[in-house]
């Protein structure tokens, strides 16, 4: 049938506009404007502007915010642990304990000499008595006379990188010539810090997994609710010949949009939080407490890897939302059929 064949029969068929003038005119013009604004590009078969949709966007935004905070935190901890690792592993310490009957200054000089004679160190610096005492100030306070205490003296050795120093040989020489000196390569610290950072990253991953699981369940319930609310839409789509795949695609597209919206809000919020935290700590770092926090946790400034992680998590949440809804819809349609 060609519609053109019938255009000349409009008058015969007599379908003139039988709507009373003025009735619903306001509502019509409003709806017409809305329809024109939406444009003819693509039909949104699942209504988007519903209370349930807005609630789901809020849930996804909160979940994304928590997930990206967790992910960004894990990246911060990982980066900080790398910082500890690289800064500590570039230095070693010879600790010379004051022993009764030995000249500690002579022991310090001898130890430093042995270190200088060993290839692989770029710098050997002996901490003076005052410097060693100053290191204890954060714990014992300033202005105390510590001359009566047997405070060990420190010699800091900086690694040249290549060649690697023969630490066993240095330990042997120190043991023979300066029995009160101990070489500390911070291996124990490194192991503990490594374990701690790995544990923190693991905890972050578990939290991330829990957040994603909770979100997936929320999306599954929301999809079932949306399907129940769209029962008539699904029926009509079936009657006009839509396949299950088509209907699932429509729901998937609808939930992908909601996921992207929620992910953008939640991820954007996390990015702002990290950005502000970075600025705040850069101001705070001038204080002693700020210095200590920075030494332990870094400066809260996310690197590019951190920002990429947040974007990836937000996109993954949107994709998870879409795939979860598709799976739920297809399962429900199979049951209905």
């Amino acid at each position, binding site marked *: 049938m060609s519609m053109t064949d019938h255009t000349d029969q409009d008058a015969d068929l007599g379908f003139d506009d039988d709507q009373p003038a003025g009735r619903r005119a306001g509502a019509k013009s409003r709806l017409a404007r809305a*329809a024109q604004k939406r444009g003819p590009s693509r039909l949104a078969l699942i209504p988007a502007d519903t209370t349930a949709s807005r609630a789901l966007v809020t849930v996804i935004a909160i979940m994304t915010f928590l997930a990206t905070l967790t992910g960004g935190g894990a990246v911060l901890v990982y980066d900080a642990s790398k910082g500890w690792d690289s800064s500590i592993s570039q230095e070693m310490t010879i600790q010379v304990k004051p022993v009764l009957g030995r000249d500690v200054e002579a022991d310090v000089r001898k130890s430093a000499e042995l270190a200088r004679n060993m290839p692989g160190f770029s710098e050997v610096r002996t901490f003076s008595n005052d410097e060693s005492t100053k290191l204890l100030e954060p714990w014992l306070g300033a202005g105390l006379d510590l001359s009566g205490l047997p405070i060990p003296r420190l010699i800091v050795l900086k690694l040249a990188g290549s060649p690697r120093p023969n630490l066993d040989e240095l330990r042997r020489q120190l043991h023979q010539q300066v029995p009160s000196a101990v070489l500390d390569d911070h291996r124990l610290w490194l192991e503990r810090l490594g374990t701690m950072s790995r544990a923190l990253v693991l905890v972050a991953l578990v939290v991330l997994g829990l957040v994603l699981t909770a979100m997936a369940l929320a999306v599954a319930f929301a999809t079932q609710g949306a399907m129940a609310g769209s029962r008539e839409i699904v029926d009509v789509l079936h009657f*006009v010949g839509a396949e299950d795949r088509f209907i699932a695609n429509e729901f998937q597209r609808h939930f992908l949009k909601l996921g992207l919206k929620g992910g953008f809000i939640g991820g954007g919020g996390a990015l702002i939080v990290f950005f502000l935290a970075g600025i705040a700590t850069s101001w705070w770092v001038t204080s002693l407490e700020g210095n200590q926090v920075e030494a332990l946790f870094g400066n809260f400034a996310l690197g590019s890897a951190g920002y990429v992680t947040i974007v990836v998590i937000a996109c993954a949440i949107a994709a998870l939302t879409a795939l979860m809804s598709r799976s739920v819809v297809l399962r429900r349609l199979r049951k209905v059929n």
Partner: protein
Amino acid sequence: MVRFENVGLRYGMGTEVLRDISFAIEPQSFQFLTGPSGAGKTTLLRLILMSLRPTRGFISLFGQDVSQLGKDEISAIRRRVGVVFQDFRLLDHLTTYENVALPLFVQGQEDRTYRPQVIELLRWVGLGDHIHAYPPVLSGGEKQRAAIARALIVQPELLLADEPTGNVDPTLARRLLRLFMELNKSGTSVIIATHDLALMDQFDSAKRFVLGEGRLHVYD
């Protein structure tokens, strides 16, 4: 085109609501399906539309045994059938234009390819000024015509209309019947479920399928 042989249908363990239904719908034919309220007219249309499966008997649509069809094949057959529901079943969040264009959208066609065709059909059924209106603000007659336009837009080989004049005044009912007759002339087989005797009297040459007590009687 449509063939029923000894079809029976029961819901659950109840008695059969349709018994030994046998008939055939020929291409380009016109028939009324009538009977008292609750006789099973809508149920019979749903069997033709494959939204219900018979408990016994044989149904073929377009030469295919319905019991052997997969879901995608059912969808493909439904694309050859236009349906006008008694309660219109327009989607309230879509405009009249979008509702009418829905079957073409489902078939994967682009808006720019079907836009002139949809607008032309809307004008043909007298809804040219209501393209951007939403169903909740349309009158009963306008909704009816929008539902009919949606059924016609795919130029179906078979049109099923369930009480298409049930919500309109006699004048509009006559106009709608003329619309279906025009459609039939252009090659579509039409089945109209109605209990409006006056309407059927306006088209004497149409076959009458009369449902009563679960059985079907065909009058040429």
